Each structure stands twice: as C-alpha cells, then as structure tokens.
C-alpha cells in the first residue's frame, strides 16, 4: 500500500528525509525552539539552580537592555560599532571583489597572490593587534583595520572561487558570439558569478561581526564589543549576555537583509527547480 505509506499520520510525516514541510511550520519551528530555550533558561534561573553571577535570568538581561536603551548607551555603542563594521567590511569588499575576480580569471594573478593570501588568512587576527596599533594608532582606524584583516583574506579567496566555478561554456559561448575578452568579463563572467559573490558578501559580513569584540579589545571607549569587555571587569554578567545577544541579533538582521536583497537582485536565479 504505497499510498498509505506516503500519508503517514502524525509528526512522522514532517520528519522524512529531505522532504519539504509547510512554510508556516518551518517558520514556527525557528521561533518556538529558541523560545523553548529561553523558557528553560528562565526556569533554571528562577528555581535558583545557578547563581545569578554565572547566569542571570532572561528578565535581568532584558532589563539591562532596557536600561542601556534608556540611557542612550545602546545607540551610541551600536552606531559606533555598525560604522566600524561597515567601514571594515566595505574596504575589504571593495578590494576583494575586483582582486578575487582577477585571480579567478587570470592564472598569473592567481599564482602570484594565492599562496600569500592563503598564508595570511591563517594568521590569528588577535595577534595582529599590537601591529595594528603601531600602524594605525588607537583611533577608529585601528578597529577598522582589524575588521578589514579579519574579512579581506577569506573574502578574496571565496570571490575567486565564485568566479572559477561558473560554467566554462558560458565563456565559450561569448567567444563564439564575437565578444572581446573585456566584454566577456563584464557582461558574462560577472553576472554569472554575481549570485555567488553576493552570497560570499553575506557570509563574510557575518565574519566581520564576529571580529567586533577583537577589534574593540584595545583603546576603545565605546562600541558593543567594548561594553562587553568592560562588563567583564565588574562581573556584570547580564551586560555581557545582553551585549553578546544583541550583536547576534544585529548579525541576524544583516543576514536577513542580504538574503532578501539577493532574492530581489537575482530573481532569475530563484525560480530554478
């Protein structure tokens, strides 16, 4: 009775390998699961199973957020940090996209740059803080430099890959249609690689966010990362938790923005299947 099998009753029918589930369920699952975690968190703290110093309750963390918002600290911190993130990531992007594209298309450029970049990208960014201060001082420039270093080297290799993985026959088609190399680059390779590059930008700005605390580790007066490091000194656990969650939240919004925009920009790429 194959038809019977297809219509398994109960939750089982939502747990079949690789099968799609209704959109409402997918979305609800994404809301309900975190909500459950918060509930557990709340219960654990409310029942006094852990000391508030180690884990304050969700209410306390939320109250800390409200306090920061009321006093204006939150906006001041957030705007400074967002500015640094954007500046660091944009500088990286503006350089990585063209360089990655060149590396993906010209073996000579790839040969010249790839070993170097592959090496640098394994260097721990934290270890570069002293140098970054030496080079860029202790102002915003140093923070932006750290974010740049944390982003650029990964980004450039990923963009190179995005370019390399496009269908070679598209380039051949361009040649048979009489386009010059320049035209093929701009009018075929670029648009073909664009969705992949956009995805790279989305993933790498996430990494830029994860470097925020490192960037604001030294000689910063404000910023979301700074706030967390300061709180460590006073053991203000709720400040640490709120700050961390808030950075995560901003990261989530960034990701959402990129996904939505990508869907609009590359609508042609979505209808597949």
């Amino acid at each position, binding site marked *: 009775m194959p038809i019977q099998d297809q219509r398994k009753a109960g939750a089982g029918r939502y747990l079949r390998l690789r099968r799609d589930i209704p959109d409402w369920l997918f979305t609800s699952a994404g809301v309900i699961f975190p909500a459950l975690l918060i509930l557990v968190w709340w219960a654990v703290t409310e029942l006094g199973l852990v000391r508030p110093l180690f884990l304050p309750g969700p209410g306390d963390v939320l109250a800390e957020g409200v306090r920061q918002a009321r006093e204006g600290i939150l906006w001041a911190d957030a705007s400074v940090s967002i500015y640094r993130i954007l500046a660091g990531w944009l500088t990286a992007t503006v350089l990585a996209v063209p360089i990655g594209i060149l590396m993906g298309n010209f073996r000579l450029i790839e040969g010249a740059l790839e070993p170097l970049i592959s090496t640098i990208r394994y260097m721990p960014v934290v270890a570069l803080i002293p140098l970054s201060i030496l080079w860029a001082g202790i102002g915003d420039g140093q923070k932006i430099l750290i974010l740049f270093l944390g982003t650029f080297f990964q980004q450039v290799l990923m963009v190179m890959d995005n370019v390399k993985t496009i269908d070679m*026959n598209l380039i051949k088609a361009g040649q*048979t*249609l009489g386009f010059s190399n320049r035209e093929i680059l701009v009018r075929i390779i670029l648009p073909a690689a664009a969705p992949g590059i956009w995805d790279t930008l989305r993933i790498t700005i996430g990494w830029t966010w994860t470097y925020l605390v490192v960037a604001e580790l030294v000689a910063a007066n404000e910023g979301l990362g700074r706030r967390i490091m300061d709180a460590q000194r006073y053991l203000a656990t709720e400040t640490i938790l709120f700050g961390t969650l808030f950075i995560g939240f901003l990261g989530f919004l960034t990701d959402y923005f990129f996904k939505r925009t990508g869907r609009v920009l590359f609508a*042609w*790429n979505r209808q597949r299947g």
Partner: protein
Amino acid sequence: MGALLTLDGVGKTFDVDGKPVAAVDSVDLAIAENEFVSIVGSSGCGKSTLLNIVGGLEEATAGEVRIAGKPVTGPGRDRGFVFQGYSLFEWKTVAGNIRFALEKSRLSRAEKAERVEHFIDAVGLRGFENAYPGQLSGGMRQRVAIARALVYRPRILLMDEPFGALDAQTRGMMQELLLRVWGDHKVTVLFVTHDVDEAVFLADRVVVLASRPGRIKREIRVPLARPRPYDIVADPGFVAIKREILSDIREETLKSMQLALGSTERSLY
C-alpha cells in the same frame, strides 16, 4: 573543392602532467554546404575536442581547419555553437539570450528585433519570450540555445551532444525540431552524439570516431529520404546502417576497455 568545411590532418595533443596525450589524431573531413554530418564515438574519444577545434575555441596541434578555403584561427560568427549541457545566460530572458547573440551584428534595431521574433517562433518558444532559463524545462532550454546559435545566421552550426541530457521523448521531439529548423534555414551542421539512433536519424553522413586517439574509423552515408518520419528507426535501411555503426563502436569500446584493463594490470605490479 566544393566543400564548405574541410579538416586536413587535424590533431590535438594535450599535455597531461608532462606527458603528451593525443585526443584527436589526423582527422580528414570535407563537409559540403548544407550537409548534416553526425560524429559518433564512445565517451572520451575526442568528439568535444574536435568540435572545439572547428569552433576555434581550441587550437589544433596538427593540421588545419578551413571554412570556404580560409583557415580557422579563432571563433567567428560564421559558426554557431550549441554546447554539451545547458549553457544559457541565466540572468537574461529567453528573448534576451537570443538578442544577446545579435549584439555584434550590424543589423538595424528593427531587423534585430524581427530576427529574434522569427527564431522564437522557429524553435516554438512563443509565449516564453520573457521567461528566465531557470523556469524552463531541459528541452526548452536547448531550444533557446539553438535559437541563440542560429539567430546571427552562421554558415555552420556545431552541436555538442545537445540532447544528451534529455529524456527519450523530448529528445525525439528535439531531433524533429532540429531537422525542421535546418531545412528552413539552410545551414551546415556538425552534430556530435554518442547515440547511434540519433546520429543516423539526423544525418546525411555519419562519421565514426575511434578512441584514443580519436581518429576517423569510418564514414557512412545515410541515403534515407527526407523528411524522415520518427518511426524510420524501424526501417530496414536504417537498421542496416545502425548495425554497421554499432559493430564499429563496439569494437572500439572493447579495445579501449582492454587498454584500460591492461593498464590496471600493469599498475598492479
């Protein structure tokens, strides 16, 4: 003379890890204007390489390809290419893909628009002009590819297993469509496939390629009348030709399998 396309001792040797590997070897071929020639051969025997050389996308390491007497030195708009796999510009609509192929031609705006319209009809894509390739089925995508390759009116159409990824029914429909378009637009076709039925059904002449290195094993005329009905595959004349080609290919496949077996044996020591 008389031939539009001539291959004269064409060969291609690749350098694989410092060792020369012959993919195509001394291929001589003369193809008349408006002729439809199929090239069959087992996988990896050099069919794509040969077609790429004619297309000017790869350089031969020996011999010469001439079109109307002039040596081929690179890709040109006297040749259209339909690739193995679906190579469309995904970010352009059906009409956009076809129009893009006309960008380098000196036609007026109105003439270009008219050409695009004409070929949308010719390949039966009316109603889908504004669809993106991602919305189309495999057969429809290859129809766009055919229109894109023909819209600038090349003299020669090069096709590399264009229907290889399609299901049997769609493939049959596409073959008929191709023959119709070929009949209407008078173009010389060089069609690569590893499907013997397809090769015989379409062509005036079938070239069987031997493998490793790819060289011509046999040329067989297909004197079957046109238009050919789809059930001609059951016709005794068709079957006889097919049988000859199959035995050729089987011989080649066996040979290359023995070669492969021999080399694994050797590598065991």
